[in-house]
């Protein structure tokens, strides 16, 4: 399905964006193409944010009350529960699982912080979800923050066979955000396993029937209610825009042209 496929991934690496060596080393052979930071100023721009715990002030973006009002704490019924989600549950009320928002808030803070750092360093972020109800919402969110989305049928070798299916030397995403980790037949999305194979960090909104094991930054929360999904999309969009604006600001301050 060519229509739903990443539009800008097939870039030949003439002008590489700075890929952080700290986060991931891809299986692709572009070690020669990744330019090392030359000046001390560029190094400072890149390394200083890593020393701060909350450089982008993301803790002010949401509170537990906001998550509560967006119905993030509601899980599925007890019979649908995945065994590995039990640590993230507050309890079960009349057979409905309730997700612990104190834990969710910590996980969400970590996920947003990581996303902000990836966006700050010019990484490619891919929004993935197979929920048809929220496909349009996720595509518009990705467009509004200048990143990519894939909400259609996931072809087999999209990540693992990219150099043959697209062109050799294609750049893969640096972070994949799963807004729902299940596909339409309640199996885990293929992208989670493939991203783990390709050493690409992932963030996933895991509901009480999902498997959080292979996901780098799981965020336990409701993925079925429109209010909750709108909240997540809004939070990630604000994070990415904030990080990109900060980067532009730092570049202007240092007086160097942004390396694209």
């Amino acid at each position: 399905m060519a229509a739903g496929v990443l539009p800008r991934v097939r870039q030949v690496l003439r002008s590489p964006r700075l890929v952080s060596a700290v986060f991931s080393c891809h299986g692709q052979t572009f070690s020669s193409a990744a330019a090392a930071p030359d000046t001390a100023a560029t190094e400072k721009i890149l390394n200083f944010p890593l020393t701060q715990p909350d450089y982008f002030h993301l803790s002010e973006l949401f509170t537990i009350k906001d998550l509560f009002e967006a119905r993030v704490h509601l899980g599925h019924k007890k019979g649908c529960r995945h065994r590995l989600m039990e640590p993230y549950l507050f309890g079960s009320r009349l057979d409905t699982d309730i997700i612990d928002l104190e834990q969710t808030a910590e996980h969400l803070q970590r996920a947003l912080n990581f996303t902000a750092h990836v966006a700050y360093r010019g990484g490619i972020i891919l929004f993935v979800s197979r929920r048809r109800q929220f496909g349009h919402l996720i595509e518009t969110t990705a467009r509004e923050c200048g990143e990519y989305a894939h909400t259609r049928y996931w072809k087999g070798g999209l990540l693992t066979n990219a150099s043959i299916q697209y062109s050799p030397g294609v750049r893969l995403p640096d972070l994949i955000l799963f807004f729902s980790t299940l596909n339409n037949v309640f199996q885990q999305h293929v992208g989670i396993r493939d991203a783990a194979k390709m050493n690409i960090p992932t963030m996933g909104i895991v509901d009480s029937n999902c498997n959080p094991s292979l996901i780098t930054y799981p965020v336990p929360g409701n993925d079925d209610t429109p209010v909750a999904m709108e909240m997540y999309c809004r939070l990630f969009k604000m994070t990415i825009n904030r990080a990109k604006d900060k980067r532009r600001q730092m570049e202007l301050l240092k007086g160097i042209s942004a390396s694209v």
Partner: protein
Amino acid sequence: MASLCKVMRNVSSRSSLLQKHCVCITHRSLYSSDASGGDDKSPERAKGGFAAAYELHSDLQQRGDQSAARRMSSRDETSFASLLRHSALMQMGPAKEKVVIGKIFHIVNDDLYIDFGGKFHCVCKRPPTDGQKYQRGSRVRLRLEDMELTSRFLGATIDTTLLEADATLMGLIESKDTKTKE
């Protein structure tokens, strides 16, 4: 002793302000023979459904404000456990036969997709009476059956879920605008 009696009478006359059971206990401790009427602290709980849940919730909030407002710190009020404890969903109890208000957010021909504040929406058929009044944004009354339709089939390890709630449509909410127009 006389002064004590006077104090007790004053106290009993203002019993509407103080909590009834406190007064009764002090009565019993001082005058063992005096048995005041049973402190029936359960008001009209015979009402079922969302009305009772809403009243109970606002009752709790009022009592909480009066007695514990000073004690509760701001951190307690916004902790997840306290938010959950005082939420309408908890106060409601089992979803069977509860009456709630929902809002229609999507319509496909004769199917109305209604959101009532739970995890899932419910889908109801457009009723034959006043069919055209049910549009996007209309508020309706629902009788809930189940918050999520799930069932475990033979040979399955996990429940199969329909990602929908189950409710019966009772009727439109007559808003003040429609009343004044008529």
